[in-house]
């Protein structure tokens, strides 16, 4: 088995282990033989803890049911930054592998020492440590082996027991309890002495609280907490607290004004500066002469729309420390942001991760935790549990940014691309806690002495960028220019949502590729392959096409389209073939997907992530759009922000194209852009006109058909 490759010349340990080298941060061996494993990555519904437990069990030489994955914790566990960007398996996997291999090596060495045997003769299977007739166990040696030691770059890096567990579809460890309806979510947390809190959010962005009637709640058991325009209630009975916040709403008067752009002119809004110009690819020479084609594409703001409203719990302890429970994607970043907002020493705050419903990016988890911190300040020693309303979840969480792409190509006489140029217009894709030096926690903007929050930034290029993520086509074009334009002032809060700019950029690139193929009179799959040398990419495209039966004639009113990308240019390859029926409505019948994530740790886990990502992308593509008037967000429930239903969910077939010799990369975001493009291309094939602005609602398709009819000679 090949040792892990060094990440930097100075430290051959995997990056996350080098940053958190003490083995006991990762693994605790209990006297009963159970292994407690703490990682810095968190369960977001994606199944990552099961995949990581498989790696831990394989390296430790124990059964999967001997592993207990403990919640991430700022005090006790490793700091691995955010759980985002489909990086968990790539970053945490190697670190955990080495930490567990070295833990095992220390137990093996101890057994060998007591037996006066050679460590090479000691084997570990199912937690039993054996040399000839002599047998001991992890539990028996737990009190003797010291794990409060740093990982050693010279020591074993893997035992390579991969075949037994890694690569198998181990069932999710957390699903039996969740499917049985047991309390496993932060919403179910009930701590001793716990109170419930609710926040009364302003009626619109930019609103300030002018007046709060005196004593609106009377002598009830619920009391009001106010700091400027931040108002909330705290009490012992959750139902009473929920009623109290509505009473409070009626007792408040707000100063409001129109701050929002025209929702029907997002293209114009995104182009009205100031902007940061992001030069991704600069052309050193002008484009060649030839036939030029142009097209513009767009997507609206999107809501995370998780099934659970955000939730947070906080308790101010008697010694002045603060305990917080959150479903944040980054508990260390949240801790630092709370410390910054309140002027506290970061060491006096402990944040523990608690699971929630599916997380698809920077939602309101951190905001809800900070709400709990502010409300709990009024009741020292008592934990306060804050749950958002559905309306607040859909109107106050950060949105996935609106985007718009202008693409332009020069083609030669045979229709091949001689020059590719694109301009990407977007709001920023991250306003996570601590961004641009600000806490970034929603309530901070409403306090008596408010924090001013700048427009969202973008992740740095080494983390995959934001506006320009996947803006560079994978195809071999002889002349290219790609420029991003990030809006620097906006009244709408945006942040990271599954795939960030890649969703829009892949939708635009792959739609335009189809338009260019059509112009050249070449089959869209063939046209892509003619421009693509990348062997893994070609294989994935061909596998998806073969599985879908590409080339067979489509029935009337149906269409087939293809979309493809390598996520971030460095991650998973994914090709999607969509079959749609477009008669009275747009219905995606089937998505056939091929994906290459390198070494597959859990095949069914990868399939589930791809299926889920594609289904969610179909929902974004067909239905979703944050609605607003000039004053407030108006899409505030499931009727005004509809998502895909059971009757609309496509059948999905996933083909895994595996190369076990290549490092594992994440699967969670790979399907987003290719799915949107495949559906759009299939709709264009079915109805004969192209819709370039998402979502592809029946109204949008009909409007495109009518406008095409008008322009016919």
């Amino acid at each position, binding site marked *: 088995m090949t040792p892990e490759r060094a990440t930097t010349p100075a430290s051959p340990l995997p990056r996350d282990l080098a940053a958190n080298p003490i083995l006991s941060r990762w693994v605790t061996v209990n006297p009963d033989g159970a292994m407690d494993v703490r990682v810095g990555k968190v369960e977001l519904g994606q199944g990552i803890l099961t995949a990581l437990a498989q790696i831990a069990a394989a390296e430790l030489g124990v059964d999967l049911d001997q592993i207990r994955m403990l919640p991430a914790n700022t005090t006790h566990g490793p700091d691995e930054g955010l759980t985002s960007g489909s990086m968990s398996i790539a970053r945490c996997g190697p670190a955990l592998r080495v930490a567990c291999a070295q833990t095992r090596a220390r137990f093996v060495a101890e057994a060998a020492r007591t037996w006066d045997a050679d460590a090479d003769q000691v084997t570990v299977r199912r937690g039993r440590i054996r040399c000839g007739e002599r047998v001991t166990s992890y539990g028996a040696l737990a009190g003797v082996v010291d794990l409060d030691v740093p990982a050693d770059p010279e020591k074993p890096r893997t035992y390579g027991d991969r075949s037994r567990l890694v690569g198998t579809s181990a069932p999710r460890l957390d699903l039996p309890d969740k499917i049985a309806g047991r309390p496993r979510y932060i919403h179910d947390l009930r701590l001793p002495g716990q109170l419930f809190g609710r926040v009364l959010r302003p009626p619109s962005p930019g609103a300030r609280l002018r007046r709060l009637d005196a004593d609106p709640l009377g002598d009830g058991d619920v009391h009001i907490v106010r700091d400027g325009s931040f108002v909330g209630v705290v009490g012992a009975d959750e139902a009473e607290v929920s009623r109290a916040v509505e009473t409070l709403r009626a007792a408040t008067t707000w100063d409001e004004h129109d701050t929002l752009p025209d929702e029907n002119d997002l293209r114009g809004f995104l182009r009205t500066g100031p902007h940061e110009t992001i030069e991704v690819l600069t052309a050193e020479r002008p484009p060649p002469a030839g036939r030029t084609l142009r097209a513009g594409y767009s997507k609206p703001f999107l809501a995370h729309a998780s099934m659970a409203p955000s939730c947070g719990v906080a308790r101010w302890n008697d010694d002045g420390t603060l305990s917080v429970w959150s479903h944040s994607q980054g508990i260390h970043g949240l801790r630092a942001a709370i410390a910054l907002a309140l002027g506290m020493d970061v060491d006096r705050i402990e944040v523990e991760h608690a699971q929630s419903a599916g997380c698809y990016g920077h939602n309101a988890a951190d905001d809800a935790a900070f709400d709990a911190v502010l409300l709990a300040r009024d009741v020292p020693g008592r934990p306060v549990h804050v749950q958002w309303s559905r309306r607040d979840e859909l109107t106050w969480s950060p949105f996935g940014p609106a985007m718009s792409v202008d693409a332009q190509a020069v083609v030669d006489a045979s229709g091949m691309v001689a020059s590719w140029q694109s301009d990407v217009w977007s709001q920023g894709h991250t306003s996570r806690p601590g961004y641009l030096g600000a806490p970034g926690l929603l309530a901070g903007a409403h306090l008596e002495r408010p924090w001013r929050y700048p427009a969202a930034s973008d992740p740095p290029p080494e983390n995959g960028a934001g506006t320009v993520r996947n803006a560079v086509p994978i195809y071999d074009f002889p002349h290219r220019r790609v420029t991003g334009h990030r809006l620097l002032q906006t009244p709408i809060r945006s942040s990271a949502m599954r795939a960030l700019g890649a969703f829009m950029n892949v939708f635009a690139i792959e739609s335009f590729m189809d338009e260019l193929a059509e112009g050249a009179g070449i089959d869209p799959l063939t046209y892509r392959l003619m421009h693509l040398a990348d062997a893994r990419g070609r294989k994935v495209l061909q596998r998806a096409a073969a599985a879908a039966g590409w080339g067979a004639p489509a029935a009337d009113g149906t269409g087939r389209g293809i979309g493809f990308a390598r996520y971030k240019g460095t991650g998973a390859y994914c090709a999607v073939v969509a079959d749609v029926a477009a008669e009275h409505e747009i219905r995606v019948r089937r998505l056939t997907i091929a994906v290459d994530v390198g070494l597959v740790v859990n095949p069914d886990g990868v399939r589930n992530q791809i299926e889920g990502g594609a289904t969610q992308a179909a929902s974004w593509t067909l239905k979703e759009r944050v609605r607003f008037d000039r004053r407030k967000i108006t899409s505030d429930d499931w*009727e005004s922000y509809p998502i895909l239903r*059971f009757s609309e969910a496509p059948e*999905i077939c996933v083909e895994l194209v595996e190369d076990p010799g290549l490092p594992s990369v994440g699967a969670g975001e790979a399907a987003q852009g290719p799915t949107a493009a495949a559906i759009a291309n299939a709709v264009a094939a079915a109805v004969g006109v192209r819709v370039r602005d998402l979502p592809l609602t029946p109204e949008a398709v009909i409007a495109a058909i009518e406008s095409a009819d008008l322009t016919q000679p």
Partner: protein
Amino acid sequence: MTKEFELTVNGTAVRVETDPSSSLLHVLRNELDLKGARFGCGLGLCGACFVQMDGKVVASCDVPMWSAEGRTVVTVEGLEPGDGLHRVQQALIEGQAAQCGYCISGITVTAATLLETSPVPDERAVVAALDRNLCRCGVQRRVVRAVLQAGSAAAAT
């Protein structure tokens, strides 16, 4: 002003004192410590809080206690007597038909209720029954397969 209510939950007669306007979901989660029904929207639009009331699927977030008096309620925890799992739950685990699992209690209640009246439903019936249940992670097709499996497994025994 609180009031006392009597109802049957998962086969047991219970008596709770609460405000008549408090929701059945609130009482299940906070008074009876049954956390299986989840809060999703509070408007009866997502299905995360679905329970059976007198044999029909209802959104427990949208049922005030004054209308739950004397009713018979079954939550996801009570679908199968004893500690075992309902065949829908078994099929969901078998098919790994969940990601975050937050919507799955309501889906299970809907599916189990369907199987009571239609023990071996076809795909169209399963999809139609589940159309009021939202899922954001995108496991709809796995759920449909699992429910069909639960139906056909019961038919085979």
